[in-house]
Each structure stands twice: as C-alpha cells, then as structure tokens.
C-alpha cells in the first residue's frame, strides 16, 4: 500500500497552504471558488492510507504526531466529502455577497482545524487544531455581521474557549500521568484508569467535550450559531466540525475499562439531551433552528452511546458511535444545504426537491433502508435492552416528528417566484451530498464482516425501525390537525437566563473598577507600598 507520510502530510499541508496563500490579495480574491479542492487530499489519504503508522513532526523533546486510526479515518472520510460538496455549494452562494475573502479564510482555517483534529495523535496537536477549528468556525458564524450573528459568535467563542480551557487542564493532568516525555493520546487514555486524578480528569474531559458537543445545558450556542451562519457553513459546522467532540471522547475516555459512574453520568446527560432537543425543537419555526435542535438531540444520542459503552467497558462501542456520527455528518450536511436550495426554488419545482429532503430527514428518525436505520441497528447492541433502549426509541419517534416539522417549516420558505429554480451550482452540490448521505452508510455497513451485525433487511428489524417512524408520523398528523399553537420558546432557550446573569456582571465590573481607581491614588498606592513591604517582610521572617 502507499506510504502514509506523504499523504497525511499533504492532507494537512494542502488546506494550510491555501490558507497561507490568502495572504496574497490576488489569491484571496479567487479563493472562494476553490474551496471545494481543499479537502480532496484528506479524502485521498482516507482512501489510500491503510496502516496507522504515525507522521511525526519536530524533534524528540516536543513533537506533533499525526496518524489515521480507524475512527479518525471513518469520520475524516465522510467529513471530507461534506467539506468538498459544501465548498462547491459555498462558491455560488457567496457570489456577490460581502466579505467573501474573510469567508474563505475562516472556511480554510476551520477546515484545516477539522482535518487536524481528526488526524491528531498527540494532545498538543489535538488542542492546536481544535483551537483553529473554533476560531475559524466563529468567523463563519459572524459572516453576516448582523447583531444576531455577533451574539451567536460571542456565545460560541465564549463557550468554545471555556471548553478548551477545561480540556487544557485535563490534558496537562494527563501529560503528568504519561510515563516519559510523550504526549500521545493513546498513552494518555491508557494511563487514565490508573491515574491518581482519574475522576477529575474524566469530569474535565466530559465537561469540555460535552460543551463542544452541545450537551444540555451547554447547548445554547448551537441553535444560535447554526441559525446565524450561512447555509454551507452551518452544514459543515453541524455536520463535520461538531464531531471533533465525539472523536475526542472516543480517543481520550478509556472505553475498554468499565467506569460505571462516569458512564452513567455521560449516558444520562446524553439521553436527556436527546429528548430535550426534540421537545424544544418542536416549538421552533425557523428550519435552521429546528435542525440545530435536532443536532442537540442527535449529538446527545451519540454521547449516550459512548456513555453506555463506558458503563459496559466495551471498546467496540467506539466504532458504533462513529458509525452513527458518520451518518449524521452527511445527513445533517445535506439537510442544511437543502435549506438554501429550497429557498431558491419556486412552488412549481418544489416536489422533486422536497421528496428527497423528506426521505433524508425522516431517515434520521430511522426510516428503514436509510443510513439512519443502519445506524440504529449498529448502536442497538451497545444501548442494551434497558431503559436506554426505551429512551432511544422515544428519541426516534421524536426525531421523526421533529424532522416532519422541519420539512413543513421548509415549505413555507420557498421562493415567492413560482417558476424559480435553484442555480445548478447550488443544486448539484446539494444533490451529491444527498446521494452520498444515502449511499455511504450502506457502503460502510457492508464493509463490516458478515455475522457481526444483523441483516438490515430482516422483516423484524424493518418493522422495529418502521414502527417509531410511523408513530412519529401519526403524532405529527395529530399535532398539525388539532393543536393550533405550540408555546414559543426563544432560540437557545436557557440562554435567556444567561442574559440575565450577564446583566449582573457589569455591576461587579464597576465595583472592581471603582476599587482599582481608588488604589491608583497616590497616597493609597504609597500606603500599599509600605503595607506590602511589611507583609512580605513578615512572611519572610516567619519561616
């Protein structure tokens, strides 16, 4: 097989090089048209690299290591596909809009960060690329520069940096536990179960990655950010970027060792988010916000799967969660892109587009023969037969309901021009994402050796998948027929509470400012100088 080094290096260096090329104004001007090419080397690396021999950059003392392990390769592959199609979609989308150059720069930053995180095999490079991803994503969210976008960006970067600082402490603690000077994630995860700070580290990791994954109550950034971001950006953020947190959990948490307490917490938090996202999402009207709440729910579900894996100490859970994530990457990406396509389509040509959208959307709820149903089969084992499975079924019902709600909302956004059709340059990238989102899960599923997983075409499995979908559809019909008005909950629900807290903060700031002003008076400073001398002298003499 092909040597891993050059391909891995090229996968990272190519988008990075494009990013650096943006320093040159001429290149910056053209860059929006070439965004689709940036992730191609990464995709090639996924296809052609078979071994996970690492790429090491830097001298022995402190180096960056990159490798393509199986979870990383799966996610990177589908994420690269989404980045390619969304990049192709972005170039006509940006035509004639302001800040094209900035969009390209932020896009490439986020892309490099995303690829880097999926490839990172040591903590420093993981953290480095995660930060890049956050910064780039923040730039994409504020693209439209509306007040709403700025607020969304502020909340996103605030929570993102908070999450990263929590992770940083966790990484530092982990680094102390690794024997020797290495910083490899694999070593860290291996050393974690026996670490003296085990519980602290796991809490920090769960909190940090949980914030990034949008676990309730840290989900507030998601609805706002995805609603504010341009459609292609929302597609890659909700599809690809957010999966960095899932990959982080899988790489850092020791899934091979049973950790029932932490696992229960994680599973409970995930399942709660899975239901919460659906319930709040039902009250929303804008399609992008509905999709964002669906992301809250789906991410919660994936986290719950990981949590169940931790309870059982079953290492195979990782791949199940990754499979589910991979399906979500493509489906969510296709759905976000469809928002833009539908908005440019008139009533007359609506149906041919709406139908695949509806199939993909309901597929998320587990419609048989779609990737969603396959994903549900894959995670069925790790979820077990207990309460978690019941909640999972409930969430499937809810997701169907929510997705129908999304499709219904989508219809109201069609172009006012009856005859309008989406430009081919918007239409084809969307269509290919949609097609890929139906095909790739099957391809991945069939790649699993026979006998490991049940046959998805078996009648009882088909019924098992169909039944929640039918239930959801009936519920939706009931809801639309008889319930006139659902309560309206503001986008980002509990962010309102946050806003109220934010009003108290200035008062504190003012108090500190006043105190500081007093300290700056000459005689006060003189007296503090003397007091400090006495205090320092006392502490020194006391030893």
């Amino acid at each position, binding site marked *: 097989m092909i040597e891993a080094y050059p391909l891995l290096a090229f996968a990272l260096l190519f988008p990075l090089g494009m990013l650096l090329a943006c320093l040159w104004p001429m290149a910056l001007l053209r860059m929006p048209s070439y965004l689709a090419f940036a992730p191609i080397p990464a995709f090639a690396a996924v296809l052609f690299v078979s071994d996970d021999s690492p790429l090491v950059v830097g001298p022995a003392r*402190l180096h960056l290591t990159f490798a393509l392990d199986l979870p990383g390769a799966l996610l990177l592959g589908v994420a690269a596909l989404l980045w390619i199609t969304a990049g192709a979609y972005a170039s006509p989308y940006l035509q004639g809009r302001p800040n094209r150059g900035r969009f390209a720069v932020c896009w490439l930053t986020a892309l490099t960060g995303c690829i880097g995180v999926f490839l990172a095999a040591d903590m420093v490079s993981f953290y*480095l690329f995660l930060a890049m991803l956050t910064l780039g994503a923040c730039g994409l969210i504020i693209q439209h520069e509306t007040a709403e976008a700025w607020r969304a960006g502020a909340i996103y970067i605030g929570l993102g940096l908070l999450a990263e600082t929590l992770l940083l402490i966790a990484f530092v*603690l982990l680094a102390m536990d690794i024997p020797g000077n290495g910083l490899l994630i694999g070593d860290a995860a291996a050393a974690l179960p026996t670490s003296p700070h085990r519980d602290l580290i796991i809490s920090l990791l769960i909190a940090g990655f949980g914030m990034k994954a949008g676990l309730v109550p840290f989900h507030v950034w998601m609805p706002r950010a995805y609603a504010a971001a341009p459609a292609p950006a929302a597609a890659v953020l909700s599809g690809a970027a957010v999966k960095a947190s899932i990959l982080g959990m899988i790489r850092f948490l020791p899934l091979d060792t049973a950790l029932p307490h932490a696992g229960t917490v994680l599973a409970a938090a995930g399942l709660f988010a899975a239901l919460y996202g659906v319930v709040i999402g039902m009250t929303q009207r804008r399609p992008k916000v509905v999709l964002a709440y669906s992301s809250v729910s789906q991410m919660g579900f994936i986290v719950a799967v990981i949590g169940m894996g931790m309870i059982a100490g079953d290492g195979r859970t990782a791949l199940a969660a990754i499979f589910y994530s991979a399906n979500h990457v493509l489906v969510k990406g296709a759905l976000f892109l469809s928002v833009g396509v539908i908005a440019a389509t008139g009533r007359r040509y609506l149906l041919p587009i709406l139908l695949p959208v509806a199939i993909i959307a309901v597929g998320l709820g587990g419609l048989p023969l779609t990737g969603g149903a396959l994903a549900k089969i894959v995670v069925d084992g790790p979820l077990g037969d207990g309460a978690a499975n019941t909640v999972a079924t409930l969430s499937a019902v809810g997701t169907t309901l929510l997705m129908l709600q999304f499709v219904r909302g989508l219809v109201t956004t069609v172009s006012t021009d009856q005859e309008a059709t989406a430009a081919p340059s918007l239409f084809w990238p969307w269509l290919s994402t949609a097609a890929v989102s139906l095909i790739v899960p099957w391809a991945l599923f069939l790649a699993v050796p026979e006998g490991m997983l049940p046959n998805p075409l078996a009648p009882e499995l088909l019924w098992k998948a169909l039944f929640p979908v039918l239930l959801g559809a009936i519920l939706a019909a009931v809801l639309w027929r008889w319930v006139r008005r659902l309560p309206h909950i503001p986008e980002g629900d509990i962010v309102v509470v946050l806003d109220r807290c934010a009003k108290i903060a200035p008062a504190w700031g003012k108090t500190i400012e006043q105190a500081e002003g007093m300290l700056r008076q000459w005689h006060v400073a003189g007296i503090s100088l003397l007091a400090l001398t006495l205090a320092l002298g006392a502490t020194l003499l006391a030893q």
Partner: protein
Amino acid sequence: MPAATALEATTADGALLVLAIILPVIGILLSFVLGGRYAERIAGILLPAGLGVACIVFLKAWHSEKSLSYIVGNWQPPLGITLCADGLSVAMMVAMAIVICLIGVFAHANFGSRAVSVETRAPMVFWVMLMAISGAMNMIFISGDLFTLYVALELLTFAAVPLVCLDGRAETLQAALRYLLFALLGSILYLIGTALLYGSYGTLDIVLMSQRVHLEPATLAAATLMTVGLFAKTALFPLHLWLPPAHAGAPAAASAVLSAVVVKGSFFLIVRLWFDVMPGLLSVAGAQLVGALGASAIICGNVVALRQRRLKLLIAYSTVAQIGYLFLIFPLAADPLHLQYGDALTGGMLQAISHATAKAAMFMAAGLVYASLGHDEISELGGIARALPMTMFAFGLGGVCLIGLPPTGGFLAKWLLLEATVATAQWWWAIVIIAGGLLTSAYVFIVLSRAMGAPSEPLTLHAAVPKYQEVAALGLALLSVLLGLVALGPIDVLQVGRPEAPMAWLR
C-alpha cells in the same frame, strides 16, 4: 558549588558582552556629537548591530551550554565587576533586541529625520532614549553585581520617562512625573536593600553572594525592600498607578517600548534576586503572597481592561494583567518543597517574551488606528478592519497570543505554568490562569467585533498609514504566534548556567 567558582573568569568571547553594552552608549554619544538629525541613522546601524551581537551571544551559549562571562579590567570580585550571560540573559537579550529593532522600523514614520536639516527635539530624544533603553536592558540582563544592576535600573527609568512625555502635552507630562516619582521611590528601596546586603556580606557580586547568603533578619529585610521596590517599578498590582496613564498617553512607538520592554527589566531583576542571589530563601508564605499579588493583577487588570472605552487604555490595563502572570512563577517555581524548578521559570520567561512581542504589536496597531481615525474610542472603531486589515489582523494575532491559544508563545507559557500548578498541587493558580485567559478573550473579541462592524457614519481617514508600519506590527504579532514553536528547538537555552538544584536544598 564548584561550578560557580569556575565562572569567575573571563570566558572566550566574553568581550561580546561588553560590546552589547557599549554599542548603544557609543550611539548615544555620537548622536550628541554629530547632532540629533543623525540620531536615527546612528540608531539604524547600532540597534541591528546590537541584535547581531545578541544573536551571537545566544548561539554561543546555546551551543556550548555554558554561561559567558567577563571580568571587567580583570579585577576579581568582590572588588571587581563581572558580566555574566546565562540562559535567561541570552534569551531575553535576543528577544528584547528583536522587539526594539522592529519598534525602530515602526518609529521611522513618526520620528524619522527625513530630509529636514533642522534638528527637532522629539525624534532626537526618541532615538537616543531607544538606544539608552537597549543598553540599559542589556546591562540588566548581564550584570553580575547588584550595584551595577541598580545603576542599570536607574538608566532604564531615566530613559523611559522622557518617552512618556515626548509630545509635551500636559497630561503626558503629568503621567511622566507620576511615573518618575513612583519609580524613584522604588529604586530607593532597592538601594537600601543593596546597602544592607553589602553590610552583611561585604560583597555585591551575585555568585559570591549566593555562596554566602543565609537566613538572617538583615538579609530578609534587604530582600523585602528590594523586591517591593522592584514591584513598584514593574507596576505589579496594586502598585500600578503610574502604568495606565503613562503607557496609554505616550506615542505608539514609545508605548510599545514601555509596555513590551521596560517593565521586563525590573521583573528580570526580581527573578535574578530570588533565583540566583538568594535561591531558596523565599518562604512558602512569601511566595504565595507574591503569587496572590500576581493573581489579583490578572483578575483586576483584565476586568478593568474590559471596561475601558479607549483602545490604548485597554491595552495598558491588559499589560497590568499580563504582568500578573509573570509573578505566578514565584509560588510555582520557588517552592522549596517541590522539585519542579525549571518548568515554571521557563514558562514565566516565555510569558515575558511572548507578552513583549504581542503587546508591542498591539500597541503599534492601536497607534495606527489612532493615526488614521484621529481617536481610539472602541465604540467608534466600526469599519477600521476594512480600512486597515493588516493592522487589525496583527492586533488579533497579538490578542490570540495573550489569550494563550496554540501555537502561540502564550500557549506554551501557560501550558508550562499549568503543568507546574499540577506538579506542585497548587490548583488555585490554575483557576486564575484560566479565568485570566477567558477575560482576555472577552476584550479581544469586543475590540475585533467593533472593528469589523459597520461604521456609524462613513469613515474618514485622517492620514494614510505607511505599509511598512503595518508590516512591522504584523511581523511582531507573527513572531509572538511562532514563539510557541521554540518548544521544538532552543527552549532549553533558558536552563543554561542554572545550578542543578537550588542551594536551599543542600543546606
């Protein structure tokens, strides 16, 4: 300590150290002799030459892994004076020389002598003082004797004060006077300390002193007085009264020098004092007290920075906060109970260097914004990012370094400091480090969001900004970002010439 006695001889190339000090002095004298209109040209030759010397010294120390030293006039201490460049000195020398050179490039637009044949005062003062600061900093970094350090410190102050009031406006004069008087209070405390130490040990040579020093009241009193005096000069909270008006009022190039370079001089001296002159004498409670001051500087400085309406004042308060980080190394590195000695010190020095580059870039950016808008009200910055994209990019990069995102130098510094908090089980400092980073990100985000927003009325630019000024700011900002990569190379140079273990453990 046999290693120390071996140092008391001129090493090969020790003469380079003398050159590092006298080059700027020659420049100053030449400027007076030839006239102020040549000052810029002289500085233009001598500052890069100083950088070259610093680089050579750095490379020699790095490769030989030994300190360079020079005994002036071959008079052995205690009577003679030694110059000694260990790892800390050479790293700081190079970093400061680079920053000063780039500031010189930036200042060409404001203080360039151009073709005018008449001598104007501000440019002459600026260039002469810039050279004086460069010389004084080098002297602080390589002096091996506490009294020479006092003289260097005073030189530094006297060179810095005129920079504050270059434009001669009343409020900058006031700020300069405040600065001068408070700094004098600080230096007099340092002088009392020197007198007490000489009275106790009969020498002021650092190496000899570190062999003789022991716990006794006079020594501790001297150490206290010197430390607090240096706190006043470093503007450690709550003794920072002079810093915000002085740094915010000065012209951009001068602010950059003051914030990036000058405060590091007195900080470096505190490090010398506690890690070289009296290693291990800092009690646990004392170290915690210094750390607490640093922590309150971080929190208070950042919060007050968040509430500023003017960009330059915001940056000045951010300096107050960033100085706080430097003092966290005392509880983290000087804790005699734990063996984690090197990492926190390395982290602190790296923080000093990355702050120098990032803050200089930010002050330059603020100066360019001021020059083109005619004001620096943060709420009125709308549209400036479109008018001066490179400048605001430099500001943003500097901000990223202060926040401590990878791969910046600030990140590496914080990583090392955090590692030290874990190793010494002092988690409370970790909380402060983290909270400081978040507060920093808040004000950087506010400034950038204002700058990228739409202007309330069409933007009228007062003056065109020369490209090279933007490039200088961006260069410094990129430097601060790439500084994180020193981890891949010469970071170990900071440990050159450091004893394996502090003396206190051997007692």
